[in-house]
C-alpha cells in the first residue's frame, strides 16, 4: 500500500485537485483562469519535450498550437453544420493530428542540426507561418480570425458545454491525460534516447540511433500535444486569430517553461500555472505586467538557470537531512529587503507608466490604496530610496544566505562520512 501510494499518490492528488478546485473557486473569472492554466500546462509541457528533453530551443512552437487551433475551429464549424460526425469531446484530437502533420514536415526539415541552427529555422518557420497567415484569409480568417460555436448536438457525455465549468472539466480531463502521457513518454526508450541525443548526438549516433530521426519523432510528438492544446483553446474561447501562430505566444511559452524549470518534468507545470496566473490577474491591475514578466525571466536566467523547479529540488536533500530549519532564518531575513526593493522598483515603474500612458498625467495615481500625484518629487524620492535601501540590505543578506547554505552543505557532507 505505501509503495502504491508513493507511486500513484501524486496523480490521485492531482485528479482530486482538478475536480475540487472549481467547486471552491466558483466565480467565472477563476473558472476561465483555471481553464487557461490547463491549456498552458499542456502547451508548456509539450514545449519542454523539445527544450528540456530534446535539447531543441524552439522559437516557433506556437505554430503547432495555432495550426491545431485553426483546424479544430474549422472542424467545429463542420460539426455544427452537420458535415462532420465527431463528438465535441474528441475535437482536440483534430488539433493534435494537425500538429502531427505539421510536426512531421517541419520537424524533418529543421532537426538535422540542433543548437543555433535549429533555433533559427524554428524562428524562420514561425515568422513564415505568421506572415502567410495574413495572406490566406480563408484559412486564418484575416484580421478578425475565425469563430465558432461549441454548443453542438454531437457529444459523448451529454454535456451541452454551454457553461464554462463544463468546458473546464473537459480541459482538465485532457490535461490530466496529456500530462500522464507526456510523463510516460519520458520513461520510454524514445524519451531516454532523446535525452542522449540532447547530451551528445555523436555518441547517440555511434550506438545506432539516427539523431535526426529521434529529434523528428520527439518534435512530432511535442507538436501533437501543442496541437491538442490548440484544439482545447478553440473550444474554450470559440475564437482564434492569426496572432496565435505568431512570435508572441512562441516567446511566452519559452519564458514560462524556462521560469518553471526545464530540468524537471514538473517544472513547466509550475511555470504555466504561475505565468498564467500573472497574465490573467496582473494584466487586469497594471499595464506593466509584461515588464515584470520580462524582469522575472531575466532574473531567472541570471541567477536560477534551473528555474523554480531547480530551486525546489535543490532543497530536497537538505529537507531529507532535516536541516531546512537552519536555512530558514537567513531566508526570512532576505525576504524583507527583497520586498522593500521590489516595492520601490514597482512604484517607479507604475509612476512612469502613469505618466506615459494615462490620458491626463496630473490625475492622482492610486497605489496600495494611497492616491498621490505622479509628478510629486516625494513619491519619486521615496521610491528611489526604497529601491536603494532594499538593494543595500539585499546584498548583505545574500552573503548570509550563502554562508548558511555552505554550513548546511558542510553539515550534510559530515553526516555522509
Amino acid at each position, binding site marked *: 500500500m505505501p509503495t502504491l501510494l508513493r507511486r500513484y499518490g501524486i496523480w490521485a492528488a492531482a485528479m482530486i485537485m482538478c475536480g475540487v478546485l472549481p467547486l471552491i473557486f466558483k466565480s467565472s473569472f477563476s473558472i476561465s483562469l483555471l481553464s487557461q492554466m490547463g491549456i498552458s500546462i499542456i502547451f508548456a509541457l509539450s514545449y519542454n519535450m523539445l527544450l528540456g528533453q530534446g535539447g531543441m530551443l524552439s522559437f516557433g512552437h506556437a505554430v503547432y498550437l495555432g495550426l491545431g487551433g485553426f483546424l479544430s475551429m474549422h472542424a467545429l464549424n463542420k460539426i455544427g453544420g452537420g458535415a462532420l460526425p465527431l463528438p465535441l469531446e474528441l475535437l482536440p484530437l483534430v488539433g493534435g493530428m494537425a500538429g502531427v502533420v505539421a510536426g512531421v514536415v517541419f520537424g524533418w526539415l529543421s532537426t538535422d542540426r540542433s543548437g543555433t541552427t535549429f533555433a*533559427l529555422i524554428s524562428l524562420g518557420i514561425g515568422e513564415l507561418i505568421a506572415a502567410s497567415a495574413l495572406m490566406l484569409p*480563408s484559412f486564418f480568417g484575416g484580421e478578425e480570425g475565425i469563430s465558432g460555436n461549441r454548443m453542438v448536438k454531437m457529444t459523448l457525455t451529454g454535456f451541452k458545454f454551454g457553461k464554462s465549468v463544463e468546458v473546464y472539466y473537459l480541459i482538465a480531463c485532457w490535461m490530466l491525460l496529456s500530462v500522464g502521457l507526456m510523463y510516460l513518454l519520458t520513461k520510454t526508450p524514445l524519451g531516454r534516447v532523446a535525452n542522449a541525443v540532447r547530451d551528445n548526438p555523436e555518441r547517440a549516433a555511434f550506438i545506432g540511433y539516427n539523431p535526426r530521426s529521434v529529434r523528428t519523432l520527439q518534435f512530432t510528438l511535442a507538436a501533437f500535444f501543442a496541437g491538442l492544446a490548440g484544439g482545447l483553446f478553440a473550444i474554450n474561447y470559440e475564437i482564434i486569430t492569426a496572432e496565435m501562430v505568431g512570435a508572441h505566444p512562441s516567446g511566452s511559452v519559452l519564458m514560462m517553461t524556462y521560469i518553471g524549470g526545464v530540468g524537471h518534468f514538473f517544472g513547466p507545470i509550475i511555470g504555466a500555472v504561475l505565468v498564467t496566473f500573472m497574465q490573467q490577474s496582473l494584466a487586469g491591475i497594471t499595464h506593466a505586467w509584461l*515588464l515584470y514578466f520580462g524582469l522575472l525571466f531575466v532574473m531567472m536566467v541570471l541567477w536560477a538557470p534551473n528555474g523554480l523547479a531547480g530551486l525546489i529540488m535543490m532543497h530536497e536533500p537538505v529537507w531529507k537531512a532535516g536541516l531546512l530549519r537552519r536555512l530558514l532564518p537567513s531566508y526570512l531575513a532576505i525576504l524583507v529587503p527583497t520586498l522593500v526593493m521590489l516595492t520601490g522598483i514597482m512604484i517607479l515603474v507604475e509612476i512612469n507608466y502613469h505618466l506615459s500612458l494615462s490620458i491626463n498625467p496630473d490625475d492622482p495615481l492610486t497605489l496600495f490604496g494611497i492616491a498621490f500625484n505622479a509628478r510629486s518629487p516625494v513619491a519619486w524620492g521615496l521610491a528611489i530610496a526604497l529601491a536603494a535601501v532594499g538593494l543595500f540590505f539585499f546584498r548583505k543578506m545574500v552573503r548570509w544566505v550563502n554562508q548558511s547554505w555552505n554550513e548546511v552543505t558542510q553539515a550534510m557532507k559530515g553526516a555522509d562520512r
Partner: protein
Amino acid sequence: MLEYLLFSVLNSLVLGMLLFMLSSGLTLIFSMMGVLNFAHASFYMLGAYFGYQITQAVGFWPALVIAPLLVGVIGALVERYGLRTVHKYGHVAELLFTVGLAFIIEEGVNLIWGRNAMTYPVPQSLDFPLFTLFSTEFSTYRMFMLLISVAIFIGLYMVLTRTRIGLIIQAALTHPQGVSALGHNVPMVFMMVFGGGSALAGVAGVIGGIFLITEPAMAATLGPIVFVVIVVGGMGSLTGAFVASLLLAAIQTFAVGLEYSLTDLFALVGIHGQVSGLLEDLGRIQLSHTGPILPYLFMVLMLMFRPKGLMGKRES
C-alpha cells in the same frame, strides 16, 4: 520601366546599407562570442528613441553622435554585467538572456515613451528633393543615409584590416586563447566589440528611425530580418553580411512592384484552374504581397541546404 528599375536599385541600396549597419555588428558579435544577440534590434530601437529625444533637445546633428555613443555604452554594460554572468551556464542561457533583454527593452520603451509612434521628421537641412529623374524625386535624406552607411562600411573595413586593434579583434574571433596568451585583454575586447556593434545599431536607429518608423514594435519587425541577413550571408562573415543585406533589400524592394500570382504562373505553362477549399487564396497571392514572407523562406531554405550561408566558413 527604366524609371522603376533605377529607383528600385537606389531604394534597395538605401535599405540594404541600413540592414548592413545592423547585421555587421551582429555578425561580429556572433563570430566572436558565439552568441546570437536577440537584443541587437532592440539597440537599434534605443538608438532611434535616443535620437528622437536628443533631436528634440539639441538638434539632429549632435543626436547623430551622442545617441549611438549612449547605446554603445549600454551595450558594453550589458556585456560586462549580463552576458558575462550567464556565460558559465552555456550558450542557451546567453541566448535566452538576450531574448529577455529584448523583451525588457521593448517594455521599457513602452514605459518611457508610450505605445504610439513618435513624430520623428527628416531634419530640415536635409528635407528637399536632391534630383528628379523622369517624374520621380529622390530625396536628399536618402542620399545622406546612403553616404553615412557607405562611410561606416569603409571605416569598419579600415579599422578591422588596417589597425592594430582590428588585427587583435580578428585574431580573437578564431583564437581567443592564443590572443589572451599574448597578453591582450580578451574580455575587454569582447566588451568593446559588443559595445561597438551596439553603437553601430544605434547609428542605424538614429537615421533609420526617421526613414522607417519609430515605434515600440520596430525592434520586433526588423530583428528577424537582420537574422535572415546574417544567416544568408554566412554566420560571422562581414562580406557575406554585406552581400546578403543588399540582396535581401533588393528582393524586398523589387517584389513590391511585380504583380504575378501562382495562377498566372500555371496559366503560363498551360494549366488553368482555381484552387478551392480552405487554401483557395493560395493561387491568388500576388508576388507583390509576398514581400514579408520571402526573407524567411529564403532563410529556412538556406539553413536546410547550405547552413554555412553564402560566404560563411563554418556551420553555426
